[in-house]
């Protein structure tokens, strides 16, 4: 027993080093990474500021200079010219010039990614620092595409012979130091950074799968910043003296994707009824713990051109929902479940594991639907299950989170979600609308802000009237930051953690 005690003591002392290294910033988040491929895990490398893109996006979603210090578009909108910053060096010492940038873009085009959707005809270098992109038709989201992580600039030495990334050589203020997939990534300050160098010498990113463990990590002082907190932990962390919780709205919406060709869901009234059943206020307040995040339309605030400002707030109205359903022939049965011609109003709702809060919300929706006489069978699938359910037609309802700020301009995303006759993998399903795809096509070529806005409003109106997808809540990114961090900034587009601007409290 005595030896056991002394052993334990030894163990304790061994671990008694301070949890927080003054040289290292530790980040935690749920994202698992498996490669250094920009097309797959690029978001992580732009967030950690290893890789940078030609253009950047500010908090309002406006394009900003990145590795290209300026850019211009020809009159007809078919040629984009980008003027690269001089003196930018990659982590391996190579200089960034038009040839290198071209090579990186060509690799990006050869892989899956947003750039493939752009109607690019030709990429060429006009001189050492000038890059020209010629399009087959005007495509306004190109700027956003060039700000997307999949088009990040990497040095030629990054690529192996097969075009895959061996070891990433970016241009950012941090260079990749340790790569330990899928759980740990270490970066160190790049001293030859073209801009303001980073203050904190090293940053470590750790994947944490359990939301509750992530919250505990920051409480224990083990981790400095935790991204994507689960709602339950938010209140707990708010009460901690040495932790600050930052709540930032992000252009992401929790929405119910539904199969509009399903006999129960085909009539508009049925979809309206489902929307009326939802008690978004209660979910926002008690489940997500962010009052005011109720969604009355799909496109989240922050994307002003796409918002219907006059739309009233979404409220629960059970009697109206019942009346609408009764109008469709649904009557409550003995067990309280609605019935019509011997069929019970029972549907399955799938959601996926990547975002912990989805399941929590799904549970609440399940209980609320039950009150209206609709039974939902909720299950969690792999996120590809949503897409495959969409394609094989088995999907009935799916609770998904959609990021409208993926490439700063929601146009590309809307095209993916509604472009196919009104449908898309993550958007509408079994809904038929030709007006919306046509509008999207038109907007891609639209360069006049006013007309762009008018089109955007029309699209938002269509989605809100037809309800091919039911909006539930807007996302608020909850981030816990240890009080020793100064200069924390949050990018609502989650492109960049701005680590280089942060420092430790002296």
């Amino acid at each position, binding site marked *: *027993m*005595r*030896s*056991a005690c002394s*052993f334990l003591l030894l*163990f*304790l002392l*061994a*671990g*008694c*080093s301070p*949890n927080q290294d003054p040289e290292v910033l*530790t980040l*935690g988040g749920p994202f*698992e990474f*498996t*490669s250094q491929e920009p*097309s*797959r895990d690029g978001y992580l490398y732009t967030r950690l500021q290893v890789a940078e893109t030609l253009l950047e996006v500010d908090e309002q979603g406006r394009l900003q200079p990145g590795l290209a210090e300026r850019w211009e578009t020809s009159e007809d909108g078919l040629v984009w010219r980008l003027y690269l910053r001089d003196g930018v060096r990659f982590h391996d010492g190579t200089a960034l010039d038009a040839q290198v940038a071209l090579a990186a873009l060509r690799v990006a085009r050869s892989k*899956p*990614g947003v750039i493939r959707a752009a109607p690019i005809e030709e990429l060429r270098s006009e001189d050492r620092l000038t890059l020209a992109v010629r399009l087959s038709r005007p495509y306004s989201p190109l700027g956003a595409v060039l700000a997307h992580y999949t088009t990040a600039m990497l040095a030629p030495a990054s690529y192996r012979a097969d075009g895959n990334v061996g070891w990433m050589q970016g241009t950012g203020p941090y260079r990749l130091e340790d790569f*330990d*997939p*899928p*759980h*740990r990534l270490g970066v160190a300050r790049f001293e030859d950074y073209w801009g303001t160098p980073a203050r904190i010498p090293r940053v*470590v990113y*750790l*994947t*944490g*799968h*359990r939301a509750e*463990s*992530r919250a*505990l*990590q920051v*409480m*224990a*002082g*083990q*981790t400095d910043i935790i991204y994507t907190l689960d709602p339950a932990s938010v209140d707990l962390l708010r009460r901690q003296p040495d932790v600050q919780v930052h709540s930032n709205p992000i252009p992401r919406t929790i929405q119910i994707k539904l199969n509009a060709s399903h006999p129960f869901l085909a009539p508009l009234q049925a979809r309206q009824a489902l929307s009326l059943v939802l008690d978004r206020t209660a979910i926002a307040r008690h489940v997500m713990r962010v009052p005011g995040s109720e969604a009355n339309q799909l496109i989240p605030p922050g994307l002003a051109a796409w918002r219907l400002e006059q739309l009233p707030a979404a409220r629960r109205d059970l009697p109206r929902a019942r009346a609408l359903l009764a109008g469709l022939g649904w009557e409550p049965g003995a067990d309280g479940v609605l019935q019509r011609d011997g069929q019970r109003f029972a549907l399955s709702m799938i959601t996926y*594991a990547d975002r912990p809060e989805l399941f929590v919300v799904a549970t609440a929706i399940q209980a609320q639907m039950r009150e209206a006489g609709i039974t939902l069978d909720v299950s*969690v*699938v*792999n*996120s*590809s*299950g*949503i*897409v*495959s*359910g969409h*394609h*094989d037609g*088995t999907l009935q309802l799916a609770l998904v989170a959609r990021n409208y700020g993926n490439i700063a301009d929601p146009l590309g995303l809307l095209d*993916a979600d509604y472009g196919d006759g009104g449908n898309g*993998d993550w958007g509408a399903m079994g809904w038929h609308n030709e007006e919306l795809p046509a509008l999207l096509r038109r907007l891609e070529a639209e360069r006049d802000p006013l007309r762009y806005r008018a089109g955007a409003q029309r699209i938002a109106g269509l989605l809100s009237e037809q309800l091919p997808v039911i909006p539930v809540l807007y996302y608020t990114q909850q981030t816990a930051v240890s009080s020793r961090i100064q200069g924390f900034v949050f990018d609502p587009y989650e492109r960049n953690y701005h680590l280089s601007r942060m420092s430790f409290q002296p």
Partner: protein
Amino acid sequence: MMTLVAKRLLQAALMIWSIGTLSYVLMRLLPGDMAFRIAAGRYGYDNVNLAASEAVRAELGLDRPAWQQYLAWLADLVRFDLGDSLVSGLPVAHEVSHLVLHTLQLAVAAFACAVLLALPVGLFAAFRAGGWFDRCSLVASAFLRAQPVFVIGLALVLLFSLHLKLFPVAGFNGSKYLVLPAVSLALVMAAVSSRVIRHSAVGVIRSAFFDFSRVKGLSFAQSFWRHGVRNAALPVVAFLGIQFAGAIEGIVMIESLFSWPGVGHGLAHAVFNRDVPMIQAAAMALGLIFVGLNLLVDIACYLIDPRERTEP
């Protein structure tokens, strides 16, 4: 000796075959089209369309009859080609080999910890069988055994990470991160093995040959060292084989709780994500670790017990 190895090898082969078959069934049972799922894993689900899935179908021969596919699946298994993850699209064999190292690290640390805990506790309880220490250790053992492993882990996290701030909560970034998961596992293992050690030692101390050794004139310490240890070790080592099953179950829980990048965590995560090739590879890796540990136990028993060697 060779028969021991051969027996375990056969067992490993059977295990791999059964997991492979189960995974094959699993793959076919999953909702949706197999080609589609594999394409989603390879190219990311944003980039899947009919053409991509048809390409996969042709490449992997998914349009062949089921039995041909099954045979091909088994043939791949024999070549240790376990397929690509449906989530990351990377070869799972590579990913799992990475995870195995972490699991072994955790397992070795936990095992060492458990031995250091269980051995003194078990022996001391045995030397004073029926005494207060014996009874206390019985109660402690019963208490620990009535908990799921993760509750013990959570309790340790609350105490050592949140209140004392001695150890990190979760993750993997240095030896410090090993302490809490290893100790949680070790506590559970020691809860059982300390009692096994105690019983085994008491059995030896009360045995006729131990008495006779004393009567021959040897002291208690001499008798225990010369006759007690080896005889008491046999059932304890044999029990380790059973204990390892529990330990690996514990590893799945503990790795998951502490986000430890090991196979157990990989397995739980893969089950959660419906990533069949990963499930298959992780389950096989755990099975192989388990069979390997059992082989070590067999060899240890063989070395401890001279009777096994002289028997024809």
